[in-house]
């Protein structure tokens, strides 16, 4: 059944954060201000690669209204950041490695004075040769960007013997796939307010996907105990992975501590573009062969990822890509190798899909090409090579068994969009229609061997509100709404009874990050663990206060009711006032990990099948997505509006990835500096039909509940578009975004007109 407002019935609810969002009343962290606050700005390198000879800040400091000018010499703690591998200078000492590298920061009374101060800082650079090609970066001649050289990370996986595998193949497809430097393009650029508090504490109001991780990194930089820092991190105007790493926080924090005044920083779009993360451009070479029946005998993959100047999660993204270049298929032999390479091309990092987008675009391209060589239907070809439920995961690891692959395959195979796909003819000879499909499995959680804590807390507050307290973040995905609906449906509370507390390290427990499609699963699991003890204790206390047996009571809207639900006996407020000891329960556990000891290997997978119908205008070369069909097997739907929104929104980003988005660089310098040249999809690009089918069935003994859907909508669309374009035009796509010029044709009627004698 299609997932939409009608089919969702009463489960389709107005989000608790909705009224403030549609009326403009919600104060985002970048909307905040304080009396006496200063404006913070960062001086960034004008060169993609240079040595720093000297930095002089005296002139800038003398400008009236300038309260601080700081450089690397002013950092009390560690002058480095990076979630896993801290190799990025907060403020560069002797060298800059990309066009956004920070060299100094100022705090001033107005934006104009701050801008003047930046211009007055004198930095002498010696320009160095730019490393802008991740393949050339690995040669001996290339300048070394880091002490260990230009390779951030190398990894491989394989089984069987591909050489002999290829020898037995009837058909072999070799192709190299190229993917763009996609930008997250959250509408709210990075920023925040930084307030020095009494007693040497610091409050940081700045978006992030993991408040405690920011607190840890900031403590390291500031040389402060973590407890001295409070990180308030929600609500957020979009992130998609882009605000997971530190961005403006170190500068705001340092300037606030140096000046003793509140400091606000809010990046301009251009500063966001030059300083911020991007999706790793990848070059993925694949060679895949089949026997004459279509069985895949050998699959050989080589990945080169451009990680830019610093590590952030570049190694983890590469590991994820290596895991996802084999997909939901069986092979006789596999050989995958990958390398993530430092260059002076900005910084690549974490981004929704996390390397899966690139990997799956390449893999599904292979599947389509092989099916064609065999003369087989591309979807039937996938069925023949599909993994079995009991098969190990893509890295040979034990994974949680579901029937997701077959469920989504069948859903798409039976869809009218797929069954009716033969009709390519349109009324206009320059418009061609085509339909294509892609088949996806995508891991959630951080993977084996990476600390991946989860948990949360439930409490009955003094005012009678039931507080659900989690260290997760709301960046638009609807986490608050999902949590609210789970509390209503699984506990029986009313909307008015609930208070949700998130995004504040002074209040929330360690729940791990809001990344990797993990938060909904972990909230569900936390509530499963907390439900029994929390409700039992409430009923026990109510039983004492009412002098009634617990068996005669139940929890409901507004308070404790008699068993049959006719009478409200005790409000939650009365219960809270009556208890001797606070009712508060906390749970803490790790995200489920595979017993197979392979770093980064995933245990829980979501499956998806995607079909798209496109219209290609062969005069302009432009592709328009007319229809989409998404079958998603992710367990029970916790929040239908959120689920639909994640698939639609993820898909929209993927349409941009496929058709229009690329942060174009020339020798390490961004040419696309704002949204007039960096083209994200508009209303007109995405107002086609989209049908989402959520397949909720899980095996009876499954104990993991809802799987993540934050990323799955964004990984299968690009290969489906490429297949649809081929169906429409007969042209194979191996490079994204699709170049319109490559699809332009001189139509028949023009040829005739010109060639008439």
């Amino acid at each position: 059944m299609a997932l939409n407002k009608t089919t969702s019935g009463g489960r389709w609810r107005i989000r608790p954060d909705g009224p403030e969002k549609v009326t403009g009343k919600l104060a985002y962290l970048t909307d905040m201000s304080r009396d006496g606050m200063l404006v913070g700005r960062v001086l960034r390198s004008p060169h993609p690669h240079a040595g720093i000879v000297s930095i002089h800040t005296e002139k800038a400091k003398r400008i009236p209204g300038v309260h601080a000018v700081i450089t690397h010499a002013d950092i009390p703690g560690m002058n480095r950041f990076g979630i896993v591998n801290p190799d990025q200078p907060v403020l560069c000492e002797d060298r800059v490695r990309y066009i956004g590298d920070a060299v100094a920061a100022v705090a001033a009374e107005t934006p104009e004075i701050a801008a003047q101060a930046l211009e007055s800082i004198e930095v002498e650079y010696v320009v160095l040769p730019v490393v802008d090609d991740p393949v050339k970066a690995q040669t001996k001649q290339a300048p070394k960007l880091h002490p260990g050289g230009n390779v951030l990370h190398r990894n491989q996986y394989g089984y069987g013997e591909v050489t002999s595998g290829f020898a037995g193949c009837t058909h072999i497809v070799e192709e190299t796939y190229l993917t763009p430097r996609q930008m997250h393009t959250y509408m709210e650029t990075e920023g925040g307010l930084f307030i020095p508090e009494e007693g040497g504490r610091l409050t940081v109001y700045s978006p992030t996907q993991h408040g405690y991780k920011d607190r840890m990194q900031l403590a390291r930089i500031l040389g402060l105990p973590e407890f001295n820092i409070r990180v308030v991190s929600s609500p957020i105007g979009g992130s998609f992975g882009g605000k997971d790493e530190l961005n403006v926080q170190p500068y705001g924090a340092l300037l606030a501590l140096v000046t003793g005044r509140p400091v606000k920083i809010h990046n301009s779009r251009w500063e966001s573009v030059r300083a911020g993360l991007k999706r790793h451009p990848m070059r993925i070479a694949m060679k895949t062969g089949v026997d004459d029946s279509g069985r895949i005998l050998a699959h050989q993959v080589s990945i080169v990822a451009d990680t830019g100047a610093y590590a952030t999660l570049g190694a983890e993204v590469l590991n994820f890509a290596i895991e996802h270049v084999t997909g939901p298929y069986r092979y006789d032999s596999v050989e995958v190798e990958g390398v993530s390479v430092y260059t002076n091309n900005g910084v690549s990092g974490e981004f929704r899909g996390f390397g899966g987008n690139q990997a799956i675009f390449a893999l599904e391209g292979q599947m389509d090409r092989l099916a064609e060589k065999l003369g087989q239907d591309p979807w039937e070809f996938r069925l023949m090579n599909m993994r079995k439920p009991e098969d190990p995961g893509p890295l040979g690891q034990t994974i949680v068994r579901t029937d997701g692959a077959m469920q989504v395959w069948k859903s798409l195979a039976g869809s009218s969009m797929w069954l009716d796909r033969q009709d390519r003819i349109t009324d206009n000879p320059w418009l061609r229609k085509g339909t294509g499909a892609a088949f996806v499995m995508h891991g959630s959680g951080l993977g084996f061997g990476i600390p991946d804590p989860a948990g949360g807390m439930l409490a009955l507050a003094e005012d009678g509100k039931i507080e659900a307290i989690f260290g997760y973040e709301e960046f638009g995905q609807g986490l608050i709404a999902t949590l609210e609906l789970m509390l209503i449906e699984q506990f029986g509370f009313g909307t008015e009874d609930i208070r949700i507390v998130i995004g504040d390290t002074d209040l929330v427990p360690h729940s791990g990050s809001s990344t990797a499609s993990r938060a909904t699963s972990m909230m569900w699991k936390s509530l499963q663990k907390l439900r029994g003890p929390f409700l039992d204790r409430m009923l026990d206390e109510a039983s004492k206060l009412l002098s009634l047996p617990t068996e005669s009571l139940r929890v409901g809207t507004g308070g404790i009711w008699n068993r049959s639900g006719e009478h409200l006996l005790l409000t939650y407020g009365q219960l809270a006032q009556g208890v001797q000891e606070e009712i508060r329960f906390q749970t803490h556990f790790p995200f489920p990990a595979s017993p197979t000891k392979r770093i980064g290997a995933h245990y829980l997978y979501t499956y998806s099948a995607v079909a798209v119908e496109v219209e290609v205008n062969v005069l302009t070369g432009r592709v328009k997505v007319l229809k989409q069909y998404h079958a998603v097997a992710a367990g029970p739907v916790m929040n239908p509006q959120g689920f639909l929104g994640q698939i639609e929104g993820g898909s929209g980003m993927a349409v941009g990835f496929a058709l229009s988005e690329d942060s174009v660089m020339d020798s390490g310098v961004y040419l696309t500096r704002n949204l007039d040249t960096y083209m994200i999809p508009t209303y007109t690009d995405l107002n086609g039909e989209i049908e989402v089918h959520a397949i909720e069935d899980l095996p009876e003994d499954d104990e993991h509940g809802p799987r993540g859907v934050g990323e799955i909508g964004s990984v299968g669309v690009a290969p489906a578009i490429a297949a649809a374009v081929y169906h429409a035009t007969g042209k194979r796509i191996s490079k994204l975004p699709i170049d319109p010029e490559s699809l332009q044709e001189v139509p028949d009627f023009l040829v005739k007109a010109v060639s008439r004698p």
Partner: protein
Amino acid sequence: MINRSLAERRSDKVIECDINGQPISLDVPPTRRLLTILRDDLQMTGTKVSCEIGRCGACMVLVDGQQVNSCLTMAYQCEGKKITTIEGLSQAEIDPIQQCFLEEGGYQCGYCTPGMIISVKALLSHNPEPSTEDIEEALSGNLCRCTGYGGIVRSVQKAVQLRRDSS
């Protein structure tokens, strides 16, 4: 919430306009951007800042009923104008367009939402029966990164339907 002390400062270059039904005098340089006046001077942060080149529509407001990017509007251009921001749409009660966005889930992070709703308001005020092309044109200057526009398409369709039903 309008900062009166700022608004009441007088000079010979003072700019008189109306913001959300309140007359206001702005003692600011004539080239100061309306976006800065709203967000920084008047603390009306419902109007958002994002690209600052008139491409994304996060800062959209109504000037005499027309949708305008406040990042491209200077103070002198507001002289004698009636300006409506997102805060002005729901002064007495929530605007039916806002209600449609709530019910259809036409937002996620919400950062583009005020500008998006302002553009829909401008469209439906002038054209109660817009064609698909009219809607595409009216919203061509508003970017959303979260929703893939699915919820926005449904919200606008519902707002059009609602207007039709109530007329």
